[in-house]
């Protein structure tokens, strides 16, 4: 036992020393999460606001002006220009000056009470599906206020009220998922190359000819990264809260429990890659191979339930999917980890299986 600890700590100390001297990797440990979160937090914005809009109000009545002011209040449209008629709106649309054109005919007041005719025409640049989606929501406006008193109808329309993210801000949804992506990227990559690198440099041939056991080598190599992973988690949470005001409604301890399980799963996966590949380049390729579906199919980018069933099955296998469910649950829905045990146990089980396979595959031999 004593020599087990001695050997284990020898490997850990060596890894820490080497990591500290590898400036680039060290920089990645801290730089990557910060850059990623800024990138994703600011750049990926699926909530659409202030679309450039032109208005042609041919009616100019009290009712039409009220309609326009309600429209403005929704913040979806930003009326930057006015036009005389539909043709002028079309021209502006074609020139790319606006994304949405709103055409209010001169008989607007009469059309409002007329069941058969639309009161307002919305001209939309449909090339961007997101904008089209927004416009489709706006389309329901005149229809609704046909059947009920005007003000009430409007309220109902604006009332697209997503739970837990009432402002419909993307970062609130992105950041908990991003924790999974960033952790996976760094944890898996570092450990995937960890053993392959020593194999390439020839260190491994020396190491496996010492009394060092496979388990000591594996645990010793990944242990420093657990700490690094937890630090990264803190960075992402901190930046998310400071810059993007992402709430942590649930318990931070729960979040860290989930984090530990997820980090372990990725380290085990990385080791598995390490034992299955022969060069660092192969290990990187393999990492990217797993990274892509983790970004696309984990529910990070697209709503999980909206994916084709096959994609959902693949997503279920990936640890990231389960971690994102855990983080969104804990951070946004204030769910205690006790209610999310399926995802937690999946991560633990995944770790055990991957670690066992990795340790079995790794023999202290060269053949």
């Amino acid at each position, binding site marked *: 036992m*004593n020599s087990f600890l001695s050997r284990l700590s020898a490997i850990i100390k*060596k890894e820490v*020393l080497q990591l500290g001297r590898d400036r680039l990797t060290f920089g990645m440990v801290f730089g990557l999460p910060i850059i990623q979160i800024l990138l994703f937090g600011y750049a990926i914005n699926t909530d659409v606001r202030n679309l450039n809009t032109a208005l042609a109000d041919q009616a100019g009545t009290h009712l039409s002006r009220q309609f326009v002011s309600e429209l403005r209040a929704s913040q979806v449209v930003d009326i930057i220009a006015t036009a005389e008629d539909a043709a002028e709106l079309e021209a502006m649309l074609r020139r790319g000056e606006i994304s949405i054109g709103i055409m209010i005919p001169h008989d607007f007041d009469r059309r409002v009470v007329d069941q058969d005719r639309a009161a307002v025409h919305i001209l939309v640049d449909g090339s961007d599906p997101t904008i089209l989606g927004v416009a489709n929501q706006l389309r329901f406006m005149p229809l609704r206020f046909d059947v009920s008193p005007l003000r009430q109808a409007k309220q109902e329309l604006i009332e697209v009220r997503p739970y837990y993210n009432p402002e419909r801000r993307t970062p609130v949804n992105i950041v908990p998922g991003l924790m999974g992506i960033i952790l996976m990227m760094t944890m898996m990559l570092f450990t995937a190359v960890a053993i392959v690198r020593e194999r390439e440099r020839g*260190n491994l*041939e020396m190491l496996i*000819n*010492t009394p060092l056991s496979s388990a000591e080598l594996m645990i010793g190599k990944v242990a420093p990264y657990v700490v690094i992973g937890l630090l990264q988690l803190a960075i992402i949470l901190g930046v998310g809260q400071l810059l993007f005001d992402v709430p942590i409604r649930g318990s931070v301890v729960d979040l860290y429990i989930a984090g530990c399980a997820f980090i372990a799963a990725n380290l085990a996966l990385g080791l598995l890659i390490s034992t299955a590949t022969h060069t660092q380049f192969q290990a990187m390729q393999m990492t990217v191979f797993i990274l892509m579906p983790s970004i696309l199919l984990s529910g990070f980018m697209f709503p999980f339930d909206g994916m084709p069933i096959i994609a959902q099955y693949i997503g279920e296998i990936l640890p990231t999917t389960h971690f994102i469910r855990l983080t969104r649950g804990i951070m946004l829905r204030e769910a205690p980890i006790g209610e999310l045990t399926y995802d937690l146990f999946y991560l633990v089980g995944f770790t055990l299986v991957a670690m066992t396979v990795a340790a079995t595959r790794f023999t202290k031999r060269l053949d």
Partner: protein
Amino acid sequence: MKNQYAIAARGLSKHFGELKAVSELDLNVPKGEIYGFLGPNGSGKSTTIRMLCGLLTPTTGSADVLGTTIPGDAKNLKPRIGYMTQKFSLFGDLTVQENLKFIAEIYSYRRSDRSRRIDELLQRYDLVEQRKQFAGTMSGGQKQRLALACAVLHHPDLLLLDEPTSAVDPQSRRDFWANLFRLAESGTTIMVSTHYMDEAERCHRLAILDRGVKVADGTPQELQANTGMNVIEVVAKNPYAAQAALDEVAEIVSVTQLGVRLRVLIPDRHADPVDRVSAALDSRGVSASANIASPSLEDVFVAVTVKPEARQ
């Protein structure tokens, strides 16, 4: 009987697919001796050493190494052997001292004696000044000394060295061998592979490998005495013409040029070898002197590695 040998291998073979890297190797390495493995690249030296320390599983055969059975019992063997890989395998981004400390911890060297042992090794292997230097920035000779220091740190009974001197200058090689003799003196058995004749000559005993087959073994003196060849040294003004003349003699199995001298090997079953050589030279009008010489280790090597059909 068993105990007098550090290594006793029987019928050791290793095949990589079609390639027979090592075939039916029998070895007896006496304790406390320096045992050399001489052979060209690809002759199976590294493969044999790797089998003996458990890194490769033999296709057939087995070996008794320090009383443990290989394959199977490598775990108990590891703490008792030191292994120096052909390629520098310590950590380039750790300092000399950190590397030694790491190795001491891996071998669970007594904590109280660790720094004393490391200091001793730094002194012995002339690395005191490099103590804080990153191993990756050192010269070939310094790296080699560090590798040896790490391999012997835990006082192994058996030291396996895979072409340890292939990347160092002659002076470093001489110093390195002085260190090996000191280790052998203190009871360590050393197995060293090399393709340098002068190094092979320093070994107490050696085996010559050729394409995975052991073609000769014994002390350098025994090998030199039992080549089965007569060595004729020819000194000629025009060695090229002399060589051309000698190539036509069927009995001659090998002609090696060393400056103006030619080393000519003729199997000893042919009588009057000097006369045969002289006659061949005279018939071509080459003026040269031919005298019988005592075989060098290089002659031995050539004699045992020439193609079998040439030896008939």
